[in-house]
């Protein structure tokens, strides 16, 4: 990972996610603070990313680096945590039964990801699927159900869920712009995760270093 990525790009991408993750556009602009559950979910995701090697904090903070280098490593870690919290803040519904169900669902899903501890690609793909599906659920399905005007999707969903009252699932309707902001936020977040310093695949290295002489002999 280059110095510019570590010092500028990663912190700025994650700070952009931190800023945008709580933005809700209604009759006025609201900067929604994250719920406590988002912090717990962020810790779980961070742990899963470290465990699978998608993020290697030891490459950013270790005794071989200078104090300033370690401090930039801490900045990347801190901004990444803040961004993760805000990414969850943007996809968790604001109130009611959906909020409870989705928080529990995400908690179990992330615990499962953490326990499975698969490789980097799988965990990143899984994170994209989790956040993407939560985005669709909140900004398309729940938004359609909460729409006071009621579009075609609301009629289809109401037809499918015949007999179910919407009192417990309806959310406070936000402006259309909120969904676009959330989409950009999640895209930035996933992009940031993809360029994080990853763990070297040590298991693929030779156990004994052949040294430069071995190469000359082979030639």
């Amino acid at each position: 990972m280059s110095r510019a990525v570590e010092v500028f790009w990663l912190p700025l991408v994650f700070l952009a996610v931190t800023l945008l993750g709580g933005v809700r556009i209604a009759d006025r602009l609201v900067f929604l603070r994250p719920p406590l559950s988002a912090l717990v979910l962020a810790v779980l995701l961070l742990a899963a990313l470290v465990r699978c090697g998608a993020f290697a904090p030891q490459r950013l903070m270790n005794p071989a680096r200078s104090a300033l280098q370690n401090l930039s490593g801490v900045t990347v870690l801190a901004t990444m945590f803040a961004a993760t919290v805000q990414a969850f803040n943007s996809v968790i519904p604001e109130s009611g039964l959906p909020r409870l169900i989705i928080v529990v669902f995400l908690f179990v899903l992330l615990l499962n990801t953490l326990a499975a501890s698969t490789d980097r690609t799988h965990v990143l793909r899984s994170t994209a699927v989790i956040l993407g599906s939560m985005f669709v659920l909140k900004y398309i399905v729940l938004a359609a159900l909460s729409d006071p005007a009621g579009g075609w999707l609301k009629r289809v969903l109401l037809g499918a869920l015949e007999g179910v009252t919407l009192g417990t699932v309806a959310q406070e309707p936000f402006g259309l712009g909120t969904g676009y902001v959330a989409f950009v936020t999640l895209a930035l977040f996933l992009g940031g995760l993809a360029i994080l310093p990853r763990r070297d695949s040590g298991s693929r290295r030779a156990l004994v270093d052949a040294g430069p002489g071995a190469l000359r002999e082979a030639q």
Partner: protein
Amino acid sequence: MRDDVVRAIGLAVAGSCFGAIVWVYSRQPQTLAEASGALSATIGVYRIDEQAFADGLRFFRADQFAAARLAFDRADQAHQDPRTQFYIAYSYYREGWGRVYVDKELYARGLAAVDRAIAAAPRGRIVVDDADLQMHSGDELKAELETGVQASTEVNPLTVVRRHRK
């Protein structure tokens, strides 16, 4: 460029961005004018448009409350001046008070304005020295507005005998 210098610049940029984000989430500015006004109020250099404030005060004293609020809003676009926000809240109070009813919606807006005034005032204490007003402090005005908002009904003939604090 030297590694230390680049990293120090990166840390400074990230630190100031993070500070700005925390500030935005705590102050909740709605517009760019509000954001820049709140920022200048934080460092103590915020000034209102005195001419617009004087216009607002003239309308307020003539009981033209909607016009007064427009002028006050123009004077204090960032909603950071306690005195202007106090007058805006007072205008909602006076307009919302009827002989046998109170307009809860106007009272609620007044409550929001007086909350802004209290939040912007040093140590939350606001006192306006205006002989034309019966209430001079933000606390008195807030209590009156809260009483109106919390009333069980908007229409109450008993308020005929209740004192209106002009």
